[in-house]
């Protein structure tokens, strides 16, 4: 167990100076007459700006039609419009020094972009064109579908992907969140018309949020946004909620067999909460003490003390409807059981013994300090603003977060750990060579065996 050697303390450490206050920039909000929500913030560090045009619908909303359909739609969106062919789009982006990507997660589709402030309007113009006039050229669609086929084959050779895919299936079952990626057959069955339907339904101003952060004058930029996006029209799509996810009880092992693997990827998880939940900040702090920071208990234990792994981590993964807590580590094959023992030991300890005050204070400092780093860069700020906007968090979320973190007590953490670090019901995925790890894994629960294609073997 932990503390195989005494931890010494540092001597002569300079005290912290008094803190400079953290001031978040003023946000300018507007809703255009067509329903498009616009949020802007100025950040003048470099003569550039960053933006995201989000739509509040992603892969989950069309999972019943085909997994990954919103992602495929977003991929093909950038390959042609009624006015510009693929090559023209790429060259025009380069001409104004811009980067652009389009993609979709479980709950959103997005066009993300960054460029020089001096070319803000042409970049917004191109984003607008992609959002409204994508033409889904046949040849581009066929090429991207073929690319996607190779991608889905490749991801089945990545231990991290295999672990994540299995855990999501176990935790979410038939709910759309249970499906992280399409199969080869599903990709082969994608039709251009399906993409166009997704595009027509999702990419509308009523369903959208435009976020812009950077070196501009907010009033001027808002005028540009209005000029570019103002005459667009479209309704919010009607979405049906998915099937309720399962609630797996008791620990169970899911072994994904990768012959010849020289390391084992561990990923264990349980249901938790979304960002809107009142316990979010408490769970964030509990996670950072457990395995969410370099200085966390789990990292100190299985990395710095025992050397089982390079990269242990825990996290709270929040999607719009549900969230889950997970812990991961890629470990040496002969210490799978030993690593799991420590993973549960640290979880159980947080569930049974109040965190000492000094350790709590350290973790509070960590979380509130790191939170403020979002202020220092344009894309850091953008990411904070998009978290607030997409999760419909209160307007003062950024301003009050640090106070909320600092107000928490050892008792809060104890009850939070008991509630969400659900040690007894953790679902444990291990990806590795069966011969070397099955016996060790069997010590922690009944083992279900899968191959890398996702098929159950026993």
């Amino acid at each position, binding site marked *: 167990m932990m503390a195989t050697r005494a*931890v010494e303390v540092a001597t002569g450490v*300079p005290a912290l100076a008094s803190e400079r206050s953290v001031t978040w920039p003023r946000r300018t909000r507007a809703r255009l007459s067509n329903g498009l929500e616009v949020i802007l913030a100025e950040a003048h560090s*470099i*003569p550039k700006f960053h933006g995201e045009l989000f739509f509040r619908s992603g892969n989950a909303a069309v999972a019943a039609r085909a997994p990954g359909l919103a992602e495929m739609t977003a991929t093909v969106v950038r390959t042609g419009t009624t006015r510009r062919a693929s090559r023209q789009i790429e060259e025009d982006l380069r001409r104004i020094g811009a980067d652009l990507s389009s993609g979709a997660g479980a709950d959103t589709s997005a066009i993300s972009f960054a460029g020089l402030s001096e070319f803000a309007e042409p970049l917004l113009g191109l984003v607008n064109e992609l959002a409204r006039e994508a033409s889904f050229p046949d040849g581009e669609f066929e090429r991207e579908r073929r690319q996607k086929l190779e991608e889905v084959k490749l991801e089945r050779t990545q231990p991290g992907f295999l672990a994540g895919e299995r855990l999501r299936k176990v935790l979410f079952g038939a709910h759309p969140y249970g499906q992280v990626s399409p199969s080869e057959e599903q990709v082969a069955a994608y039709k251009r018309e399906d993409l166009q339907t997704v595009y027509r339904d999702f990419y509308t101003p009523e369903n959208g949020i435009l976020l812009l952060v950077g070196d501009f004058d907010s009033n001027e930029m808002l005028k540009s946004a209005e000029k570019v996006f103002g005459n667009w029209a479209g309704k919010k799509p009607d979405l049906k909620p998915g099937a309720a996810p399962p609630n797996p009880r008791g620990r169970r092992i899911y072994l994904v067999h990768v012959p010849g693997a020289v390391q084992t990827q561990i990923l264990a998880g349980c249901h938790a909460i979304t960002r809107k939940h009142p316990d979010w900040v408490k769970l964030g702090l509990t996670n950072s003490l457990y395995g969410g920071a370099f*200085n966390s208990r789990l990292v100190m234990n299985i990395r710095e003390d025992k050397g089982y792994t390079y990269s242990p981590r825990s996290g709270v993964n929040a999607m719009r409807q549900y969230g889950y807590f997970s812990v991961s580590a890629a470990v040496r094959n002969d210490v799978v059981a030993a690593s799991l023992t420590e993973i549960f030991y640290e979880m159980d300890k947080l569930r049974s013994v109040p965190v000492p005050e000094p350790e709590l204070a350290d973790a509070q400092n960590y979380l*509130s300090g790191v939170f*403020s*780093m979002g*202020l*220092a860069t344009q894309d850091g700020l953008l990411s904070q603003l998009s978290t607030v906007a997409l999760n419909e968090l209160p307007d003062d979320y950024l301003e009050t977060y640090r106070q909320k973190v600092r107000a928490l007590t050892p008792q809060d953490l104890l009850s939070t750990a008991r509630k969400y670090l659900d040690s007894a019901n953790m679902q444990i995925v291990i990806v590795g060579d069966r011969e070397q790890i099955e016996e060790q894994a069997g010590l922690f629960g009944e083992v279900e065996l899968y191959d890398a294609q996702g098929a159950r073997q026993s």
Partner: protein
Amino acid sequence: MKRLQIGIESTKLANGLHVVIAPDSTAPVVTVGIYYKIGFRLEPQGRSGFAHLFEHMMFQGSANAPKMQHIKLVNSSGGVLNGSTSYDVTNYYEAVPSNALERILWLEADRMRALKVDDENLKNQRDVVKEEVRVNVMNQPYGGFPWLDMPPVAFRNWANAHNFYGDFADLDAADLADVQAFFNTYYVPNNAVLLMLGDVKAEEGIALAKKYFADIPAGAPPPFADPSEPEQVEERRGNVEEKFGTLPAMAIGYVMPQRRTADWCAMALLDQALHGGRAGRMHRELVLEKQIAVEAGGGIDDLFGYNGPTQMTTRILHKPEYSSQATLDAFDAAIRDVRENGISADELEQLKVKWRSDYYATLEGGRGGYMPKYGLMHLLACFTLFDDEPQLVNTILDGFIAVTREEIQAAARKYLRNEKRAIVFRTPIQASAKEAA
């Protein structure tokens, strides 16, 4: 055209430590870095991977901050930290709320003054590093391709050609005496630069640098082995097995000119023409148009930060129905085109705008999204250690903006030659087993 001007103050302490400050009070955050001018290129022979293993040891304890205290003190001040080893430098850095600046400087000075580690620490980090190699290389499809596969094929001098992550036998052979010797030789103030960026005033930063670092004694000037390569006069080829992936892959690398020459500027823009994302010629030709490849990208690794032989490398994963030869032919056609026809005035104009935009992004650039000003720190450090001229950050763009079409075509003809390149094929064992069946 709006040009970014970074305010920079720099000085050198009596013990030879360079100090560079770039104040910016936008956010109450300061990024601190120390760069030592030693990377994996010049680590000792028989000790492959040692520079990186040593980097891990720098987090294991110093005279007044024992094991686990470095990490604890940075995190509990509200900050993040890391280190990294590259060809010619090793860095250690922290981003913290600015009220923790003095504490961070104390920590960095403490480990520059005296590392305090034992055998148990070394064994622990050797185990951690092996798992790092497994998770990034040995247990990943295309792990280490081509950054670890290319050097032994492309280069003849051990300094450039060895396994930078380390053969496990060499990692096992490393002992505490090696750690102390490496520390004493290279981790001296006269082989380092201290950087502070963000919420710090220049005079305050310099005063603090003196307070914490001035009494660290200078060491003997570190001896540097000669990393130069014999002139390459023939194409070189090698093969590596791919254990997990099913797509055949290849990487083609061309020897680069010296840093900070006119050719270097031309090659940087040529790199942008070839590898600049989806508009780049390699992606456009091989992925979008001919549709032979699933991935075709790459470029010059760490343009500003290399200080010895390096390459511009293209990495290609291609569809199995195309042979390696057919794929290489398509690649060669793209190279031939730029050698014979150069690039248009319009393309060059686009490249320059994109280059400037990317440069600004680099300066602000976080690393993995959590390290403000990492890119600026890296450039200032390299321009200080290699050029003794941190102000280059504000002027280096000029050389790239001045490149002409003629220079780009001349660079293509001079450097993109078969006898100046090396090719590594990474061949899936799964696909070849199927073909044989």
